[in-house]
């Protein structure tokens, strides 16, 4: 099922939490919803799941508006809310059974689905414990299990990997990637490596507006108009190197990282062949080039650029 969001608004008092957001997610796509705290990620997700009303605009799930068909659409959505609220006093098995029954899984299939989820989320060792007794990582797995119990076509996961240890994070990411092949997944996070590892597409949202939309690759390309190189040149005079580097065609800036030891950072126009020119220069002047590293712009920098300005 595709999700289409059209010009979505939501206002809390005078503050607009979501301010004209439009995007589309297709079946088989994992969308990473990225943004600083309070950017409107959770509010948007709550509107998709029908927990809070839509302030303005519309959300269409498989061509049906959430406004009109919320009750029917809820069956197709699995939702893991932000703080993963669960009934503490219930044993894991009972809770999953309860969720399955509520989501309209037919009584004959309930035990099988519960077993399946316990295997998928590796809950076997803890299945008879009360949820309140579980560690945070296990609670999170129970949260994921209840979201997927009815095999929904759409998964909305609000910060699914918080509180998990690195091994569990890798497992959960793998699980989400597998699920994402045939389902529509929207997951929110502010852990940047996470979106790179799991998502097909990234949506950066800030102050209720979308500020970037694309794959990690395309975001990198569009966010930075320059290439950054780190070089180390030995057997050379510091002032001379600075002057010569700045004179190279395509170089827009030279800063010394540790100039005395010969370490420099060069900003250049991409595609202008600066590395080649640089090598020739070194040969010509009989300098020893011991390092030439293109610096990849990190997603962190893109994120900071987009959300701080």
């Amino acid at each position, binding site marked *: 099922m595709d999700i289409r969001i059209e010009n979505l608004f939501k206002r809390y008092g005078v503050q607009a939490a979501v301010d004209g957001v439009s995007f589309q997610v297709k079946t088989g796509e994992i969308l990473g919803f990225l943004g600083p705290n309070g950017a409107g990620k959770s509010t948007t997700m*709550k509107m998709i*799941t*029908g*927990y*809070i*009303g839509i302030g303005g605009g519309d959300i269409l799930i498989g061509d049906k508006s959430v406004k009109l068909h919320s*009750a029917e659409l*809820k*069956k197709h*959505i699995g*939702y893991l*809310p932000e*703080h993963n*609220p*669960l*009934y*503490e*006093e*219930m044993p894991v098995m*009972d809770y999953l059974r*309860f*969720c399955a*029954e*509520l*989501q*309209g899984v037919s*009584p004959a299939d309930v035990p099988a689905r519960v077993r399946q989820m316990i295997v998928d989320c590796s809950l076997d060792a803890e299945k008879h414990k009360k949820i309140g007794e579980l560690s945070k990582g296990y609670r999170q797995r129970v949260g994921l299990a*209840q979201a997927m119990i009815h095999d929904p076509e759409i998964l909305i996961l609000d910060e699914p990997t918080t509180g998990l240890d690195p091994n569990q994070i890798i497992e959960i990411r793998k699980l989400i990637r597998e699920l994402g092949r045939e389902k529509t997944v929207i997951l929110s996070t502010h852990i940047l490596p996470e979106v790179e590892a799991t998502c097909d597409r990234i949506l950066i949202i800030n102050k209720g507006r979308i500020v970037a939309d694309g794959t990690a690759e395309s975001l990198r390309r569009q966010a930075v108009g320059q290439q950054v190189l780190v070089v180390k040149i030995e057997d050379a005079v510091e002032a001379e190197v600075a002057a010569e580097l700045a004179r190279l065609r395509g170089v827009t800036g030279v800063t010394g990282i540790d100039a005395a030891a010969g370490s420099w950072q060069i900003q250049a126009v991409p595609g202008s062949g600066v590395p080649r020119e640089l090598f020739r220069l070194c040969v010509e002047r009989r300098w020893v080039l011991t390092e030439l590293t293109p610096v990849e712009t990190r997603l962190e920098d893109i994120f900071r650029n987009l959300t701080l300005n």
Partner: protein
Amino acid sequence: MSSVWVIARRELASFFDSLIAYIMLVLFLGFSGFFTWLYGSDIFMVGQASLQSFFSVAFWTLFFFIPAITMRLLAEERKTGTIELLLTKAVSNRQVVLGKFLAAFLLIAIALLFTLPYPLTLAALGRPDYGQIVCGYAGLLLMSAAYIAIGLYASSVTANQIVAFLSALFISLFFHLIFGVLSGQLSGSMGQVVDYLSLSAHFESLARGVIDSTDLIYFLSIVLAGLLLAELSLSKRNFE
């Protein structure tokens, strides 16, 4: 399986898991048993094969116990945030409210079921009026339903259980006592209205063994009003 029943069953199980059910049963049976058989104007003192004294004790004990049972129903879910998970499942606000109502009602029904030995004992002692006893039980159930609906509404407007308990008790007190007292003070049409609103008058006529449609309509309208208001306050989040 109907979602209402799924919710009711979970809620009922959690009453028993959290000991609330046992405490309530023990206290209810203790109080009503003590005053029905052992102390005050008990059955032996009155000397009649009638459960009148039990009904008037239960009338008061249920009044206090029901807000204690209903206070957590929605307030706790609000506090812990589980309401978000519950309402984003394939259930409507109405089904949630009805499920919770049903759970509390079943708990009260179980408590009343445990008092079944009373009429059985009475049957051994003398020849009680069975019609009246059935009516009395029906009256207690109807009254409980009304107070549960009020308590459910009080629980739906706050995330604080104490607030839910006290406001449920406060609203119920009007029906239980204050309207009755006022009707004695006021005269004319105002007095009549207040008199009709007094729950104790309707309960007493049922406990005497008189089934009147006005009484039934009265109880059912309180139940309906409470449940609708609770549903409304659950759906408020959609319009804010």
